[in-house]
Every structure is written in structure tokens, then in C-alpha cells.
């Protein structure tokens, strides 16, 4: 359940970048090969943000698909499975996308 630590890192990163803002929405990018479970992040988000500038904020998660390149034949193809096999028979697949774990943007209401 590393998603708790991941969610705490999100709160910490946002409050450090925008110390004076009340955050109303957080937009994340989580790749399907990142090893991070979206439902778990959603589960942790409410309790973790309580008492912070992110309290009550809406969480929006964009899931990006995986993409791999075969080290054997050079073919590139979409793939969300770490156990996939290339059409050429090789399992030597290099992940080139889908491991993202990003805070894309936040919506804030600045207080005056």
C-alpha cells in the first residue's frame, strides 16, 4: 500500500509549490505500468488531504497506457502487461511509456 506514501507526497509537493493557495482540484497522470493503483490513491486522497490546503479538493486521474519497444526486433507497440511477449517471440521488452506518475496541474482559489 505504497499509495498512502504516494498520496502524502502529492499533498507535500502541492503545498510546497503553492503555499498560499486553496486547492480545489488535483489532476494526476498515472501510467498503467507505474505500479500505482488508481483506486488506492483515490481511497487515500480524502483522509490524507484532511486539514491541508487540499482538503475537499476533487481528484482527477488520467491513466496513460503503456508502450514498449522490443530489444530484439525493434518493434514498438502498445502494452499494459509487464509479462507480454513480442510477436517475434522475445520477452526483452523495454518500457518506453506508461510508468508516469505526475501531478499535471491543480485548480486553485487564491485567498486575498
Amino acid at each position, binding site marked *: *500500500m*505504497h499509495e*498512502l*506514501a*504516494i498520496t*502524502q*507526497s*502529492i*499533498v*507535500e*509537493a*502541492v*503545498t*510546497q*509549490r*503553492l*503555499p498560499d*493557495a*486553496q486547492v*480545489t*482540484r488535483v489532476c*494526476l497522470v498515472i501510467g498503467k505500468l507505474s*505500479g*500505482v493503483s488508481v483506486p*488506492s490513491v483515490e*481511497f*487515500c486522497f480524502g*483522509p*490524507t488531504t484532511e*486539514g*491541508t*490546503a487540499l482538503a475537499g479538493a476533487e481528484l482527477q486521474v488520467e491513466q496513460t497506457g503503456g508502450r514498449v519497444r522490443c*530489444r530484439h526486433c525493434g518493434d514498438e507497440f502498445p502494452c499494459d502487461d*509487464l*509479462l507480454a511477449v513480442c510477436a517475434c517471440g522475445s*520477452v*526483452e521488452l523495454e518500457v518506453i511509456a506508461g510508468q508516469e*506518475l*505526475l*501531478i*499535471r*496541474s*491543480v*485548480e*486553485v*482559489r*487564491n*485567498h*486575498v
Partner: protein
Amino acid sequence: MCETCGCGEGATTTVTDLGVPRAHEDTREHEHDHARQHHHDHDTHDSGAQTVTLEERVLAKNDLLADRNRERLAALGAVAVNVMGSPGAGKTALLERTVRELGPRTPLAVVEGDQETLLDAKRIAAAGGRVVQVNTGAGCHLDAAMLAEALDRLAPSRGALVLVENVGNLVCPALFDLGARTAAVLSSVTEGADKPLKYPHMFRAADAVVLTKIDILPYVDFDADQFIANARKVHPGIEVLRLSSVTGEGLDQWFAWLDRARLAAA
């Protein structure tokens, strides 16, 4: 709050130094509060919503601290090795044996990670090792900040090999760079040959897979060749070691692997 693995809010990390070996009087205890929540009071008067683009990696801070750990160790010609695996894989037994046999010819230091207790650190200290215990409380893995604090306490010597035993867990530790130069995942012959397929992130994160407890292979239904094939399916090119911390079989290869990691930093 988390029923999956016991993670909770208000987690605190404790770092306990078991002192320099044979200096039994000096068992300092030291606690740091790591509650990582920042509180901000907002007497808000709305001035309209606006979107701020951040494009920030969630683990950017951890990765920065991990890089600092690596640089700090490199400046000493030292390296850390992240030793991962499920509870009961034989991590502590291997480190005890490593301390006893490699310790006399190589500067060693050990960081033990567990949710609770000093049990593992006491085992390493009893083997004659310099050790610091990190108790993560509810946390299910070590992170770079915890290793930084452990290194503050350990003050590794020049050219040291710092063995970091992560919290027993085949999932979470795979995601958190500690600043180690290399990582090994231990898996015992009692765990089943399918583990690499079930926990691919862990076996992809490790540079070597160490099959432990091979002395009891005749008594268990475990297909070692299938296990290794599965590990290579998930991580082609992963180094494979087989050993028994009880009989000592295969330990030479483990020591040679550690030596290569250490000498590569010198």
C-alpha cells in the same frame, strides 16, 4: 485507515542506533517525528479558480534525496545495496552471515528496516555488525529520507558497503529509490516458483535475484529452473544467485556480487 497492509495516518519513523560493535554501553536511542502532513490555515476569500500547471513527478522529492544519498556515499567511495524480499525470505539470515564472513575483510554497515522492533538489528549486532534500525511504524517500505537519516547515524567509513534490509514486502519497496547503487530481491524455495510473475515490479526493480534456502530443496515442491525462467521473463538479464545461509553453499557468489558493486564505486 488502510486495511490492505496496515498503513495508517500519523505514521512516525524511529531510527535506533545500536552503537559501534562491542561498545555495548553506548546504546543511544533517537527518535524523530516524520509526520509528513503540512497544515495551512486559509481564511479564504475567493478570487476565482485558476489552473496552475505543475507537471511535477510525484516522487521527485524522494528521487532527489536518493540522488543525494548516492552522491554522499560515492564521495566516500562507499555504496549501498538495497536488499528486498518478502517477510521470511531470509534477508536477515543472509546479512548475519555476510557480516560474519565478509565483515573481517570489508568495511560493512547495516541498515535494518521493519515496522516494529529492534529484533533484526540485535541479530546483526550480535553477529558483530555496525547497525542502525529504522522502524517505519505503519509504513510498508523504506524511502530515501529514512536512509539519509540512517546514514547520519551510521557515518559509514571510506569504501564501506552499506547493506540496507528493506521492509519485508514484495510490492511497495520496488517504487522507492533509496540511493542504493544496486538492488537484490531475495526469494526462498518455500515461496513458490511463480513469485516473479506475480510481483513483476519488484523483480524488474532488482539487479539480482537471490534464491535462498536451497539446502531444503529436496524437501519442498519447488522448481528452481522454472523460478529462474520466470524471473528472466520479467527481467531479462537479471543476475541469478542461489545460496543457503545455513550451509554456506553459494555464499561466495553473493560475496563476489557485493564486491563488484563496491569496487565499481572505488
